[in-house]
């Protein structure tokens, strides 16, 4: 290209050239700006990952509702259904690469707010169930102190739990969706059935009264998964809960109204420091094998459970020493390492069973385990070693288990009771539904919610829906940006359509909105803690406060059009258009 010399006027060609250059610059700048805007400056949707347990339809539906709702905030939520252990594995590996939202159901082993607050929110050295990676020493201290006080000063403990939960709700490491109801289906006319949420899905058979109009003395349960995963009461931590509680008993039992009553213990006291617990045991109790029940049996059972360290053995973590007394075989004392509510612990749904000390004759812990889990039982029934009202009569692994009444049960058999119980594993929901309507089964569960009205309408069976201690939570990743910002977490809690979720997923009647991470009915539950209601405007405000720019629904379109403008310009002023206007010389000169 020539340089202009002084005094030389610009010819027509020169003018065109300059215009062309300016145009090219504008076009390049325009395209550059467009690219910059599109890839860097334009607000991008916030990408978040939510994981849930794939086989669970409730969790899937919740994930879908969240995805649809959060789009309005410009959040692109990936919902990933996974097998439980894969979901858990991802969460445990590296918080910075893990999910943002971890959806799961929680149910307690120890019936205390501590079970929920400790497992999911107490800081952990190695990640286990604190899958929001929450770390707040103030909160930790509060709940530890509350748990220690539970046994001695419940009012104070309750205050501390409330304080801890207030902090938690403010920090918002989790979205609390709903407290679920337990749904069971039982034959009409059977009396005495009470669903006790402390022992999920357990039917206390002894309390049932057969219908008066039939001669039937057998109660048949159709269960939706394999009945026994183990026959060892020390190890049990799974499905067999439904049969264990009628074969084996615990010292105390937790009632649905929150009170604790004695079963194998009749009375109990605690020292002022909460570290010494004394139980007085029921007299005249026999184990299924005829061995008399006393303090030695309690000591043997609990020590074996602790030694084996399987299943729910951790509930006895606080126990230092178990003392029996020579002068009184019905008195037993627990010395604790630290104060803990041993009465609640003794009610636990798992790990707190008392069994016959005659098992010690079989050998060491492992040999007893092998004996109890034999493929073919030796000798004649009973094949269980508890004090419960029913003993194990026959068992076909993976198919059914039969129980018969234990004649020497301490509660006696004067009132009407069932003689025999059959628990079957029936995998297919339609088969269970047909069976309960057709009269083959007296009790079942796990039908799709949509089918429950059919069952009620049949007039043969009734659907019993009672509050449970199971709640659905979405644990938020408090370590990974942007959720490490409290405001973003709060925004998500406000952006959750609680009502819609309960209406669509639980048909509006099988769950209630959670107040906090601790469900109603559990000691430590409090209504006086901050709440989140569905409010998208508030959520958007919080996101903005947190400095997160996401495209709003309309904004997405605008951004798209915005990024196209430079392209239009580029086309309008491209050399091809110029040529059309008859400035052909530009080409030849420039080259």
């Amino acid at each position: 290209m020539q340089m202009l010399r002084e005094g030389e006027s610009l010819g027509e060609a020169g003018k065109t050239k300059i215009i062309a250059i300016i145009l090219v610059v504008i076009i390049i700048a325009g395209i550059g700006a467009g690219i910059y805007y599109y890839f860097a400056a334009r607000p991008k949707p916030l990408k978040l990952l939510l994981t849930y347990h794939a086989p669970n339809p409730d969790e899937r539906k919740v994930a879908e509702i969240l995805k649809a709702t959060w789009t309005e905030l410009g959040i692109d939520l990936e919902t990933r259904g996974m097998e439980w252990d894969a979901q858990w594995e991802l969460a445990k590996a590296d918080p910075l690469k893990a999910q943002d939202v971890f959806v799961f159901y929680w149910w307690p082993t120890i019936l205390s707010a501590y079970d929920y607050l400790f497992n999911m929110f107490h800081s952990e050295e190695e990640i286990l169930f604190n899958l929001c990676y929450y770390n707040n020493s103030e909160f930790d201290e509060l709940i530890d102190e509350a748990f220690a006080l539970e046994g001695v000063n419940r009012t104070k403990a309750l205050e501390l739990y409330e304080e801890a939960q207030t902090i938690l709700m403010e920090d918002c490491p989790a979205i609390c969706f709903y407290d679920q109801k337990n749904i069971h289906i039982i034959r009409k006319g059977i009396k005495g059935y009470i669903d006790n949420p402390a022992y999920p899905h357990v039917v206390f058979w002894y309390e049932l009264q057969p219908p008066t109009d039939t001669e039937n003395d057998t109660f048949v349960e159709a269960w939706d998964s394999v009945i026994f995963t183990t026959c060892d009461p020390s190890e049990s931590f799974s499905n067999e809960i439904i049969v264990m509680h009628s074969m084996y008993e615990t010292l105390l039992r937790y009632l649905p109204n929150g009170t604790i009553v004695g079963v194998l213990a009749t009375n109990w006291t605690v020292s002022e420091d909460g570290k010494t617990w004394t139980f007085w045991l029921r007299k005249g109790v026999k184990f299924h094998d005829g061995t008399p029940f006393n303090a030695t049996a309690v000591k043997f059972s609990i020590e074996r459970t602790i030694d084996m360290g399987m299943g729910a053995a951790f509930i006895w973590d606080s126990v230092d020493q178990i003392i029996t007394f020579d002068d009184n075989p019905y008195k037993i004392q627990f010395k604790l390492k630290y104060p803990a509510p041993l009465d609640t612990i003794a009610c636990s749904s798992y790990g707190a069973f008392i069994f016959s000390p005659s098992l010690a004759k079989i050998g060491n812990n492992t040999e007893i385990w092998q004996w109890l889990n034999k493929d073919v039982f030796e000798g004649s029934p009973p094949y269980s070693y508890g004090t419960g009202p029913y003993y194990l009569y026959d068992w076909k692994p993976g198919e059914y288990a039969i129980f018969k009444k234990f004649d020497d049960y301490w509660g006696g058999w004067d009132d009407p009771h069932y003689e025999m119980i059959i628990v079957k594993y029936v995998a297919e929901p339609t088969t269970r539904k047909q069976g309960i309507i057709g009269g083959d089964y007296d009790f079942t569960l796990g039908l799709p919610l949509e089918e429950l009205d059919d069952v009620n309408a049949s007039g043969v069976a009734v659907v019993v829906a009672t509050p449970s201690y199971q709640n659905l939570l979405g644990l938020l990743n408090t370590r990974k940006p942007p959720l490490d910002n409290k405001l973003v977490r709060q925004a998500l809690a406000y952006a959750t359509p609680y009502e819609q979720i309960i209406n669509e997923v639980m048909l509006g009647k099988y769950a209630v909105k959670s107040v906090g991470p601790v469900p109603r009915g559990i000691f430590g539950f409090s209504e006086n803690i901050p709440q989140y209601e569905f409010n998208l405007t508030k959520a958007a405000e919080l996101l903005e406060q947190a400095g997160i720019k996401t495209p709003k629904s309309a904004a997405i379109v605008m951004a798209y059009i915005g990024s196209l403008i430079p392209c239009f310009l580029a086309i309008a002023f491209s050399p091809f258009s110029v040529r059309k206007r008859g400035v052909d010389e530009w080409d030849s000169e420039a080259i």
Partner: protein
Amino acid sequence: MGFRSYLAKRLALSILVIFGTITITFFISRIVPSDPAALWAGSHPTHEQIEKARKMLGLDKPLHVQYINYIKDLLFGDWGYSIRFKRPVLLIIFEHLPATLELVIVGFAIAILIGIPLGVISAVKENKLTDHVTRVVSVIGASMPVFWLAIVLQMVFYGKFGILPLSGRIDSMVMLTSPLKEITGFYLLDSILTGNWIAFKSALLHIILPALCIATYPLGLCTRMVRSSMIEVLRENYVRAARASGLPERYITFRYALKNAITPAMTALGLSFAYTITGAFLTEIIFDWGGIGTYAVYAIQNMDYPLIVGLTVFVSIFYVTINLILDIIQAIIDPRVKY
């Protein structure tokens, strides 16, 4: 190539296939992102529990050592412990195989007993109304979704008429009042052997619906195979010669033609038998049958990897063996098979 070397070659190939299956399933089960030790330890395990379980299951050793150990254990009959059931895998398989086999055998018996006559009739009445009806029925049979059929059968025969039991292998009350002594694990056979007629009746009533479900596919297959080969055979010269010499038609059809027409149908049925052993799981689940199909589903749902691997290996051995036996039988009876 003589028969012996043919046998040796087929045997070697079979072993190779089984070995390949074992290797692939082993590595797949180790790649899957899950922690068997955590599963073994239970639903809310502590770290010590998981570590303990890892040691116990030998998962702390390097992968190649695990693989060698696994092959060694397989050969010596130690197929590992099921995580969910905490019982030996091989024991679970052998305990529940008879249930599945009984169901599949009865199903196939129904299929053959109905399928062969249907196929013959269809071929004899070629392109007549009977033939068209039979063909439509056999196509429906071969392509009907079995879970749907199972539920419909339950709704009709249990729900509506109440004449057949809903599910299970035997009535649980019968098991209590006149318990069946298990000898072979086949309830029908055991009840006959012990002369327990109450149990026999119960077991027979229980097997009808699931066996019908199992039968639909092979029934359709059998009818179609027999029909097509019968049509071919009926056009052969020797059949024409037999007709010309005035032999009765029924005699020609069943004595001469069917004998030749049945071989291809039997081969196809043999293979589909091996296949149905695992394919029966839908029927098994709906009818609560408790065979190995039920366990396969349960194992997969619960990531019970020793059981999954065990069942896979077992089924592959079963399949390959049946295949091998069929090949050998065919080689023996049909000299035209090339070695």
